[in-house]
């Protein structure tokens, strides 16, 4: 299996984050230079992206080409390109390594997006704890600017694009795209009610394209090697490669960029297999917010959007949390619920009140003080939160509760007094 074909292309070289490596070894900024010279029609570029079936890598998996085609490109006035590097979902750490080891590819992706959309300003918003990746991006932007690849009238083409890195203040909710835009505007990170979507009403109320770091970093490769190449690397409906952040009870936790559709068991093997040779119990395949999948189902599942969907979960951001037979599932759920309780922004009634209620009830069960009625209550409260709020955080808090109780009911039953 070929690793690191798209976003981690630079990894095999020394000093992978430098402009020198990116340009000379990886062949980066080729697409950007070509665009500046030839000024291809944006429609054609969007078509190419659509054909590649690149789906958003930030969690929701929305087709990127389609999203870009919604943007009112011909509108006058400022438009923005925003990169979502907030990466705060527990289990996710892939964007960190793109920024640390291949930041120029993200920058090139954003620059191409700006050309396609007619934007002249871009922002890369990194999570508050990502000081080192933020510094790496700062360095890369400075290098690109010094090389004349960013700025005004880039390489004499008449095209302008200025890029700024921004660092957040450590709130998970600022990864939700509209909360991120609010935060960028200097306000409290509260998700906005949608519609209108950012494509029409984004940063400062202007048309804005916002994508995940990995999505942007995929774009130069697609346009360089062609949509067909990208599609062929992955599966029919999940094009390209995906970085999976594998963590938990494995021997070699880390980021693995593999083709979409790679069987889970191969990915597990890449990650060095189960820690101490213990037995796999369950996997959360897409970050803490998606439903947990029991071992037997997971071992039969391939790592792409459709297969994981069939397994009853979601590919999400590709954050694979592996749990072995020693894992206390109630304890894990308690930790996850506590996270969402802490991170709810508090605007919507069901999420503000529900996340705390869930977390306290799971903890009660964990400490042997629960009753069977509490398990029903947990499911009821979760169902009352799902799909009833401004953003998907409430769903993110509810889905683990429902799936943990569904698949590991006996562990919960054992703790509640009859």
């Amino acid at each position, binding site marked *: 299996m070929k690793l690191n074909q798209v976003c981690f292309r630079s990894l095999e070289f020394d000093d992978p984050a430098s402009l020198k490596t990116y340009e000379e070894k990886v062949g980066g900024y080729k697409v950007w230079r070509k665009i500046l010279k030839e000024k291809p029609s944006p429609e054609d570029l969007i078509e190419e992206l659509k054909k590649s079936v690149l789906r958003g890598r930030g969690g929701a998996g929305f087709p990127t080409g389609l999203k870009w085609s919604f943007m009112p490109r011909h509108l006058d006035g400022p438009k923005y390109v925003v990169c979502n590097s907030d990466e705060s979902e527990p289990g996710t750490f892939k964007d960190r390594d793109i920024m640390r080891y291949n930041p120029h590819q993200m920058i090139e992706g954003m620059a191409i997006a700006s050309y396609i959309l007619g934007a002249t300003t871009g922002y890369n918003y990194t999570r508050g704890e990502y000081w080192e990746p933020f510094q790496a991006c700062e360095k890369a932007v400075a290098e690109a600017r010094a090389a004349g690849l960013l700025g005004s009238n880039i390489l004499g083409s008449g095209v302008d694009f200025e890029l700024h890195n921004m660092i957040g203040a450590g709130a998970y909710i600022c990864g939700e795209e509209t909360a991120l835009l609010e935060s960028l505007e200097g306000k409290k990170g509260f998700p906005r009610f949608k519609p209108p979507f950012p494509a029409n009403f984004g940063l400062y109320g202007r048309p804005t394209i916002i994508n995940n770091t990995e999505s942007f970093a995929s774009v130069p490769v697609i346009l360089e090697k062609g949509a067909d190449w990208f599609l062929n690397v992955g599966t029919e409906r999940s094009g390209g490669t995906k970085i999976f952040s594998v963590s938990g009870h494995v021997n070699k936790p880390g980021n693995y960029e593999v083709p979409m559709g790679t069987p889970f068991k191969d990915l597990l093997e890449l990650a060095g297999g189960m820690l101490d040779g213990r037995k796999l119990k369950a996997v959360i395949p897409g970050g803490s917010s998606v439903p947990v999948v029991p071992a037997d189902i997971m071992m039969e599942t391939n790592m792409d959007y459709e297969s994981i969907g069939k397994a009853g979960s979601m590919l999400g951001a590709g954050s694979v949390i592996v749990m072995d037979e020693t894992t206390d599932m109630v304890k894990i759920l308690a930790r996850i619920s506590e996270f969402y309780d802490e991170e709810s922004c508090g605007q919507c009634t069901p999420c503000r009140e529900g*996340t705390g209620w869930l977390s306290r009830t799971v903890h009660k069960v964990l400490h042997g003080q629960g009753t069977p009625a509490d398990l029903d209550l947990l499911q009821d409260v979760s169902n009352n939160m799902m799909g009833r709020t401004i953003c998907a955080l409430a769903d993110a808090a509810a889905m683990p509760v429902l799936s943990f109780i569904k698949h590991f009911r006996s562990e919960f039953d054992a703790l509640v007094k009859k």
Partner: protein
Amino acid sequence: MNDTTITIDGKEVAAEQGEMVIEVADRENIRIPRFCYHKNLSIAANCRMCLVEVEKAPKPLPACATPITDGMVVKTRSPIALQAQKAVMEFLLINHPLDCPVCDQGGECELQDISMGYGEDVSRYNQGKRSVADQDVGPLIETFMTRCIHCTRCVRFGDEISGMRELGLVNRGEKSQITTYVEKNIESELSGNIIDICPVGALTNKPFRFKARTWEMKQHATIAPHDCVGSNLMMHERRNEVMRVVPAENEAINETWIADRDRYSHFALYTPDRVTQPMIKVNDTWQTVDWATALEHTVAGLQTVIHKHGEKAVGALASQSETVENYYMFQYFLRSLGINNIDHRLQQQDFSDQSAFPAYPHMGTTFEKIEESDAVVLIGSHTRKEQPMLWHRLHKASQNGAKMFAVNPVDFNLIFAFEKNIVPESGDLVAGLTQLLEHIPEGLQSATKPVILLGALAMNHPQAATLRSLAQKLADKIGATLGLVTSGSNSAGAWLTGVVPHRLPGKQAASNEGQDAQAMLQDQKQAYVLLNVEPEFDCANTGQALQAMNNAEFVLAVNTFTTDDMLQYANVILPAAPFNEISGHMINAQGDCQQFNAAIPPKGESRPAWKIFRILAQLCQIDEIAKFMTIADVFEAAQQHIAEPEAAKWTADSKNTAPRGTIRIAEMPIYAIDPIVRRAKPLQETHDATKVQGAHINKATASGLQVNTGDAVIVSQNDNEITLSVVINDCLADNTVYIAQGLAEHKTLGAAYAPIEIKRA
């Protein structure tokens, strides 16, 4: 319009593209529960109480934020909708204290009401509830933040309506809290509205709290008597005592809001200096007497003066906030006696163009139209404090992109940003306006719907006529509508009924023109008749007015309250019932003649002023008085003179010269504007009331005098000296000293825009 149909609960209804489901449902009287939605605030869609089922949508949608589409089928009470609504209700109640028995909102609480319909009897929540520390936010609003349901209406009100971000939501999730950030008072002059919009008892009316339950009170519609907006009010009364005031909705006037002045002024109604019995002074002592005795005493006193000195020796002043009926009978009585010195323009100093006035001064536009204007020029107008609800429309205009300009004696903080704000030296507004006229800024020149408003500080300027004709020139040049924004609540009514010395009712020139408000004080009269006027507070030159009163032989006050000075200078005080105890009409700045009825009967022996003047006329044997039996008779007589607003053409020049040297700038501050407001204790405790005290000067003036904030200075006008404390305030121009009018400590001083001496104490 109505281009679309949707179905709500099986009923096909017309709707307009862009409307939200909840708007259509409200119009059709289909009640969808809601907490965060408010029709005059932006949509937050955060409470999720309004979830409804929409056919073809995979999940329930918030009605307040779901735009209608043609053919949409909405179910507000289907099993899916009800389940969603009940679930939200359960979430709202788990952390709510449910302390309804001790909560002031009990009985009028949206949470209580909706939970009756959607809540369960027994809670499934058995964990500890959240509690939140309260904050002291000042004299008008009480907080009980544990009850807050985080609907953010109060926050949006601050952002969008009052323009002051005084409340915000801090922290996240369950720890979210509405706060003022650092403990501080809420200072907006519109702040009380957050009490009304708060759906629960988190924000309540501080001076009213614990006084009465809603179901114990009756409500009566009335009109606010403090400014020319004429906001519609609901007055809540229990056993003939006014308990509180809330807005009555009128989208064309005050929308769903009122100013704090209108909400809290009623606390003045039962102060100890309220007169409720006729009083006469006999041998320098006051006696409380019956009406017959008092009236006899009054007629005798007036007739003695007229007999001795003639009708010209009597001056009559009415407040600027009387009803049409009061005004009509006031002037009717006086003119029947041959008294022509009649006026209500208490603070005005320049009367030179009074004959050129239209039938009555008006704004030249409507409140709603102001929102649509693309440029506004304010001349001598501290609108935000003079007419808060008019300011609200200007604020909206500016939010809609209108460019704002001003020529003002002080760089007032009107919240919106000015393209150009001219604050001339020495209060020389004529110079300021000339400057604007000579260099008309681009944004004003190119405006398509500009509005020019002259406020109290221009109308009361010694060169008011010149300001009007300059404003006219500007209006002609840029094609603007030009309007006057008068003081008081019914200056229009006063003009129309002839409470001016040069005109009879209905713009008819008086054959015997009397003296204006200034002349009759300058030229000492032997008798004065006052209608709700406290000359030492209300007149332009209070020092002079007080002296005139003190030197008169006979002073009749038909007033709601007494003052210490009045007890010295008056000979008869007849108790006039205040606005909430009388019926009548008032005409606002856009020309609406609004009728209102007494909310409660007059207290004690008080009577409506029109009745007092009627009976006085009867006693003076004025023949025709018999035709005024009822208030309807009086209004009928007055009504024929109430005309549509008429366009003015200002061309006159003032005879007065421009103020030179160190000039006193003065205004009637928001909470000193009239006798009622001056006595409303909660308002007197606000920052707006206290911050106008002292002598305000800018840094340059202060360093010239070698004084600092807090130092004492001696100021003098009218040969009277008083000592005041310095406030350094860089909103003031050079050569100006701001000393408010309407404050007891300042009463011996003179007029606004007049020279003042200031020196270190």
